Structures are given as structure tokens and as C-alpha cells.
């Protein structure tokens, strides 16, 4: 019986394909694309301010609201943070990924791989609150700096207008540090994967043709690892763009996109504006990917 079913399927490869792909495709279409589409539709409705009711009529006035100074500020602030976190993570992740990919022995590699991904096993909120404590005025960083009489340095940094605050745990710098930590594994893993795919003979060939280590790095390693950096940056960038927990717990009164969406759909009950706001990161990500493609990030794929 089972044999006959097996033969039946063997002779109909298209049926197998349909059976295998059907359920996930259905899920993708209905749950994933469908909800995104609902979001898109909602962003074209608007909230009648007097009645507090949502008017289900096609309009662009909700989108117009995105261009208010407050909302533009939110977009700029969030994108700026996402950019800074992405660049910092790329710089921190690259040497580590390079070491894991090229130099670590198989055992050390396994250990480092686990060490890198281990934080992902624990709750994200727990880690954010842990950082809140580390960065707090009475936290370990303050204490440590105090020990060496470096308190004025910290105070100096915190007094810088745009990024400072009353303490590390209530400032954009604190958020930046926490974001960098939280998303770092998402940057290390793709870069490491990209680097592992670079055959050793390419590095030898470069060196054989007269390039020293720095030239080999610039001309061979970096271009070939760049798709990995872009893949990692898609994670760090988009995750930072949409996050609302870190700004909530470590930020000051100035909103980030995630917070704004959260508050618009919650207390304000302005679902259309929340939906339109969500389209912001989507547009930013699409622009980001287009620029990355233009820069040749996917050429070596």
C-alpha cells in the first residue's frame, strides 16, 4: 500500500512539489502577506478626530501626518540610531567573525559559536533590563569609572546634547550600547558564514600576486565578505528600526518608531496612523537594500 503510494508520487513530480510547497505557501500568503496587506489598507484610512472613529475611505491624509515635524524627528532619530548600531556592530563583529572563520580550531570554533549565540537563548527583555542595571547611575559602569576617578569623563559624555542624558540608562548612548549588544550575534553569524565561503587559495593567490595582508584584505576579503555584512546589517538595521522595548526602558521622552506605533495603536487608538508609521521602516529598508545593491553588495552572491 505504502509502496504503491510512493510509486504513484514518484511518477508525478509536480504533485510532490504541490504537496510540499502548498502548506507553507498558503501560510505565507494568508498569514504573512495577508496581514501586511491589511496593514497597508489600514494606512489609507483615517481617524476622525472629533468622533474618534476610523473612517474606512481611501485617503492619503494619514500619510501626510507622517511629515509633521514630530514624526519626521522620530523617523530621523530611529534611522540614525539604526545606522549607528549597524556600523558599530559591523566593526565589532568583523574581527571576531574573521577569527572564528579563519583561525579558530574546530573545537574553539564550536565553543565560540555557542558563546556568540548563547545570549539568544535567554529572554530578550531580561537582557534589556540587565543592561538597564549595568548602565544605571548606581550600576557597575559608573562604579568602575568612579574607582579610577573617571566620573568626569562620563559626565562630560552625558552632557552632549543629542546623545546624552541624566544617566547612561536614560540616554541615547545607553540605548546605543544595549542595541549593539543585543543585535551583535545577528551580525557575527552572517559575516562568519560569508568568510568561511572564501577559499584559502584566493588569499594565497592574492599574496602570490604581490599583495600584502592589508591589500589582500581590501581587495579580496572585504569584497567577498561584504554580502555577509549586508545580510547582517539587514538584521541589525531592521530590528533596531522596529524595536520599542529598548527605547521604552532606556530612552528619554523622545520617541522612536516602535514606541510611536505602539502608542498610536494603543492609547491613541489611531490604527491608520500606526499602520502608516509602520510603512516607514518598510520604505527605509527597501531604499537601504536598493542602495546596497547599487554598491554591489550582492554581486558576489
Amino acid at each position, binding site marked *: 500500500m505504502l509502496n504503491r503510494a510512493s510509486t504513484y508520487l514518484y511518477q508525478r513530480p509536480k504533485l510532490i512539489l504541490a504537496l510540499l510547497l502548498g502548506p507553507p505557501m498558503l501560510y505565507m500568503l494568508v498569514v504573512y502577506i495577508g496581514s501586511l496587506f491589511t496593514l497597508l489598507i489600514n494606512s489609507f484610512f483615517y481617524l476622525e478626530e472629533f468622533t474618534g472613529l476610523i473612517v474606512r475611505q481611501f485617503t492619503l491624509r494619514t500619510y501626510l501626518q507622517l511629515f509633521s515635524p514630530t514624526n519626521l524627528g522620530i523617523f530621523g532619530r530611529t534611522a540614525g540610531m539604526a545606522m549607528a548600531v549597524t556600523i558599530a556592530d559591523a566593526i565589532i563583529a568583523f574581527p571576531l567573525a574573521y577569527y572564528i572563520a579563519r583561525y579558530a580550531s574546530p573545537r574553539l570554533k564550536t565553543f565560540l559559536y555557542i558563546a556568540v549565540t548563547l545570549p539568544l537563548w535567554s529572554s530578550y527583555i531580561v537582557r534589556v533590563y540587565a543592561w538597564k542595571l549595568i548602565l544605571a547611575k548606581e550600576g557597575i559602569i559608573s562604579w568602575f569609572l568612579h574607582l579610577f576617578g573617571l566620573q568626569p569623563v562620563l559626565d562630560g559624555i552625558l552632557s552632549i546634547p543629542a546623545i546624552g542624558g541624566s544617566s547612561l540608562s536614560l540616554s541615547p548612548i545607553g540605548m546605543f550600547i544595549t542595541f549593539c549588544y543585543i543585535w551583535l550575534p545577528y551580525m557575527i553569524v552572517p559575516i562568519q558564514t560569508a568568510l568561511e565561503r572564501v577559499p584559502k587559495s584566493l588569499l*594565497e593567490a*592574492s599574496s*602570490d*600576486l*604581490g599583495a*600584502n595582508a592589508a591589500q589582500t584584505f581590501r581587495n*579580496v576579503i572585504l569584497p567577498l565578505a561584504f554580502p555577509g555584512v549586508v545580510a547582517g546589517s539587514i538584521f541589525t538595521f531592521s530590528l533596531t528600526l522596529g524595536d520599542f522595548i529598548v527605547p521604552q526602558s532606556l530612552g528619554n521622552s523622545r520617541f522612536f518608531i516602535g514606541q510611536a506605533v505602539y502608542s498610536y495603536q494603543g492609547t491613541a487608538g489611531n490604527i491608520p496612523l500606526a499602520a502608516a508609521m509602520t510603512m516607514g521602516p518598510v520604505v527605509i529598508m527597501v531604499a537601504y537594500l536598493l542602495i546596497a545593491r547599487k554598491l554591489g553588495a550582492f554581486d558576489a552572491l
Partner: protein
Amino acid sequence: MGWSAVKLLTILCQNFMDVEYHSRMSIPAIRFENVSRHFGNVKAVDEANLEIRDGEFFSMLGPSGSGKTTCLRMIAGFDRPTLGNIYLYGQDVSNLPPYERDVNTVFQDYALFPHMTVEDNIAYGLMIKRISKTERHKQVDDMLDLVQLPGFGYRKPSQLSGGQRQRVALARALINHPKVLLLDEPLGALDLKLRQQMQVELKAIQKSVGITFIFVTHDQEEALAMSDRIAVFNEGRIQQVGTPSDIYERPASPFVAGFVGTSNLISGEIAKRITGSEEMFSIRPEKIHLDSTNSEPEKDMLCIDGVIRDVVYLGLFTRYLVEIEGGNDLVVVVQNLKTTSMDVLSAKGQKVRLHWHKDHISRVGG
């Protein structure tokens, strides 16, 4: 007074340069002095001594793991000798990094940069040397002509066939005019027809550029076909260095006799019966004549009787397995000049007399 001093200086310089030139010609391109490379307890290369002459096509031949590739990598600078020194035209390069050696490599997997076009790949060495873009372009075009790929500059390596990649790898190395070109089994990945064509082309290119080529291969036929001289490697040791005919006609050890071509090794009691000495010797299958048992041996011919145990008809020639008195099996190859498969296959079980010229045996010791 001033003028004659200048003239004297000029003459001195010319003489000096002549001396320089001549001495350079006699200095070996590569010299290994007691070179060993150990990986832990494994002696990949064990006390190798070797001289490779200026301008020759030199092959390093051996089975995998015999140390030939390690030797090549030490010349390139990817690996350093544990003991001993390597000289490139008299200069000790043992501890120089690859980018400070006037040596280029064609890699087994070609190692073309996948993110660059063919032109950028070939121009890589010139780009590193900061040669202008127009000059680079001109030289790349010349190189593409040399390797018969004109107009391929804009392509990516992924758009090329195996043979074409091979040519690009060659052009990328040759454009730097290295003193020595290293080739690490460059034809291994190509199919037979293409490989034979590339053998001829490589040899022709080597003649036209006049650079010393060092060619690593495990294919004895390839080594015999292309090389001026061959070094045969086994288990980290150089077994024999010589011209292809030296290696084939006068193998110095049982290993060389068996690895390069097919050999019949005969020793002990049977050897004594044939040659009067127990020392081991080798005789090539094609050098043995098959004859009827009542034939009289001619002058300077050695002979022994046997029974044909097996016959393999191979079209161009027939391979016989002849059991000789005393137990040994000898391989004999006879060209099918007049015989057909019917004739040769019926020979199975016949008694025969084998004979060969005494100069065709090679004493291999052991």
C-alpha cells in the same frame, strides 16, 4: 683624463654586467638545501636537495602525499621549511613572504577572484604594483592574446569553462613576468582531450616566454610528455631527478620503476638465473619479445621461459601475463602489427620464451 675615466668605468661596468649575466645563467633558478617540512610527526618533505635550472620545464612527479605540493608551496612562500634553505637565483628566500618573492603560481583550483572580471583578475598583480590603468589594459590584452582568449576581459570567472579559467589563471601569473612559474596540478580538473591540448599549449607558452616552469603532477605520462627534467617524489623524499628518458629507461629505485610506466621487477634466484646476479632489476613490458620455446637467443639477449597465463587484447597492443618458471608473473606488451584478437586470445596457455636485450634492464638495487 675625465673622458677616459668615464670610458674605463663604462667598460668595467659592461664587463661586470657580463659577468653578472653569465653567472646568473649558471645559478640554478631554485636550489633546495637540505629542506625538510614537518607537520607534527609527519615528515612531508624529508631532507630534499634539488637544483632546478634557469629556463627549464621541471616536473615534480609523485603520488598524493609524496611531498611534491609541499615543495611547491615552500617555493611560493605559502609554507616555510622546518629545516634547510631555499634559494631563488642565489637569494635565500626561505623566510620571505609570498608577496616578496619573484615567483607566481597557477593554482589547482585556479583561485580566480569571483568578484572581479577576467581583466581585473589578470591585472591584479599590476594593480598592486600601481601600474596605470591604460598600461594595465594594454598588457592584459597582450596576455589574453597569448592564452588565446581575446575579448574575454569583461567576463566573470563564473561565465568561463574549466579550460578557459585555466588560461586566465595562467595569464594572471605570467603578466607579472615572474622568475619562476609554479603550476600545481593545473590540468587535473580538465577532461582528457583538453588536457592533452593544454599540455602542448603550456609547453609552447613556456618556450615563448622563456620562464622557468615548475610543474607538479601525479600523472607520469604528463610529466614525461612535457618536462625537460623530472623529480620523482615518494614519502617526502626525492627518489630520482633526471630527463624523461633517464627516468623511464634508467629508473633508480623499485618505486620509480613502478610509478613511472609499468615495470617488471625481478630479483633473487630468478634474477640470478637470468643475469647471473641476485640484484633486483627492472625490465619494461614493451622491451620483452615473445618467441617460441625452440628459438635460439641472439647475442647480448637475456632469456627465460614461461607460460602465458592471461591475454588482454587492447586494440593497439596486447598485454600478456606470463608466468615464468619459479613463480613470478611478467607483463609483456606486444603491438598488434599483424595479429588480430583471434590470434592473440588463442595464445593463452602456450609455452613461450621471453627475451630482451641486456642493455634494456635497469638495476634498481634493493
